[in-house]
């Protein structure tokens, strides 16, 4: 029935008593003259009364909730307190991991009286510069990676490393400290690593003089870091990390093989002076974290750090991620 849409709306609203007086009068006049319009109205009226006459139906089954059903439909994982709990647990794991790692670091330092001599040796042997800062930045950087797993963060960290490296290249010996302070900054933007990222500045700088007495302290760092650097490396962000380390790789590799044990301990020497987070930032990369940052390098054993701490950190990070995901899911479901 080719009815004009406007008239259709008019009739429909008329049936619902939704026309104002003028509209109603105008329509009444038209209806009196227009049989087709009248018929249209009648059929529409009958349709609506048919719809209104539809009976209420009986539910084919009870829709009551059982305690078990209720649980089934409210997944435990999605309940708010599970997310909170796992977030708290994750925080504990992260802290415990860092503490554990820092403890191992301190312990080793105490153990290795020789390390400083070796550092001196390493330093004189290999007064290479440019590795130091970028490496440290990277050492710190890997920690946030598993936490956030975002590319922007990675880029920020890498950016910091590159910047630090450039500075170091310009003035190898002297800029070490400042480079250190700039490098960690990007990770600080991320989330957790903020405290540990800043810490190195306070710790490593005072530590440098102490080693300097035995030899070229700053260079000792570079060796030490380099030794750490090549640790295992199944990296998810290989390209970027490679770009950063590529320059230093060749040199680093040459020293690494001879110096590694001593150099690695040299890093630990820096630790004692440091508060927990800093020390942890250095060893943490060894078994697990570093690999993400430096994929190109051959894996080198760094036996001196306990994997337990790193494992805890990773577990904590995973748990944190799970908490975030469940929270998101819950929000979505709530809508």
């Amino acid at each position, binding site marked *: 029935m080719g009815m004009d849409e406007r008239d259709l709306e008019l009739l*429909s609203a008329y049936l619902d008593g939704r026309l104002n007086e003028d509209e109603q009068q105008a329509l009444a006049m038209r209806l009196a003259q227009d049989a087709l319009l009248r018929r249209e109205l009648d059929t529409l009226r*009958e*349709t609506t009364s048919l719809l209104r006459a539809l009976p209420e139906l009986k539910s084919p089954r009870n829709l009551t909730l059982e305690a078990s059903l209720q649980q089934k439909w409210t997944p435990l994982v999605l309940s708010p307190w599970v997310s909170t709990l796992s977030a708290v647990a994750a925080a504990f794991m992260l802290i415990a991991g860092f503490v554990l790692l820092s403890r191992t670091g301190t312990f080793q330092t105490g153990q290795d009286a020789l390390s400083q001599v070796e550092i001196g040796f390493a330093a004189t042997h290999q007064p290479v510069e440019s590795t130091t800062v970028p490496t440290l930045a990277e050492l710190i950087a890997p920690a946030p990676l598993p936490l956030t797993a975002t590319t922007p963060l990675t880029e920020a960290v890498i950016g910091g490393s590159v910047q630090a490296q450039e500075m170091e290249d310009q003035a190898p010996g002297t800029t070490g400290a400042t480079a250190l302070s700039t490098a960690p900054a990007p990770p600080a933007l991320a989330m957790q690593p903020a405290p540990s990222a800043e810490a190195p500045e306070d710790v490593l700088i005072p530590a440098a003089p102490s080693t300097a007495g035995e030899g070229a302290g700053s260079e000792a760092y570079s060796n030490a870091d380099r030794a750490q650097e090549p640790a295992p490396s199944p990296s998810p962000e290989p390209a970027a990390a490679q770009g950063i380390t590529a320059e230093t790789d060749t040199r680093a590799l040459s020293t690494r093989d001879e110096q590694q044990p001593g150099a690695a301990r040299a890093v630990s020497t820096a630790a004692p002076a440091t508060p927990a987070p800093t020390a942890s930032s250095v060893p943490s990369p060894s078994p697990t974290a570093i690999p993400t940052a430096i994929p190109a390098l051959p894996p080198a054993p760094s036996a001196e750090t306990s994997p337990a701490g790193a494992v805890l950190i990773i577990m904590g990070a995973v748990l944190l991620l799970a908490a975030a995901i469940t929270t998101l899911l819950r929000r979505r479901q709530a809508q």
Partner: protein
Amino acid sequence: MPGILDNEPVLIARAQRGNLDAFNELVLHYQDAAFTLAYRLMGDRASAADTAQEAIIAAYRKLNTYRGGSFRAWLLRIVTNRCYDELRRAQRRPTISLSGSSNDDVPEPLDVPAPDATPEEEALARELQRAIQDCINELNADQRLVLVLSDIEGLSYEEIAAQSGSQLGTVKSRLSRARANVRDCLAEVRELLPAQFRLREET
């Protein structure tokens, strides 16, 4: 349709404190209304029962968002939203047919048929109900929603607009279109209809 429960506010308060029995009492009272609305919107018994069930679970979960007023209306709003989401989802997937005659039987009406109704009359009434539902099923999700809420649930334009997040004008035009579509659809199955329901042909 059943009225408001005498102790409804008490039951709601207890349910809000996590008392499942109290909530289930409310469910028992309103489940037919919930199912009927779901059936009118979804068009078949199985998915209507499922969607109504999901809506009731959702209602239990967000009982704390109920802030007084008609509990029935609050519950049916949740049912409506669930069904509408389902319909929209189904509409986006053309493999699932929204329209057409439903294969399953028309669910039992709540009211017992009039005592003087002959079996033939009863059967005719069933046929009519099925025909009307089939015609509702032919509508798209938007028209279906407006038609069911207005002409079956008795909501006002304003309430429908608020619930569907549409403009008043949109509600009006969708409703008039939906009514005309159902009328045209019913005209095609006119011969099925008993005399008292048959659309008049005379002018």
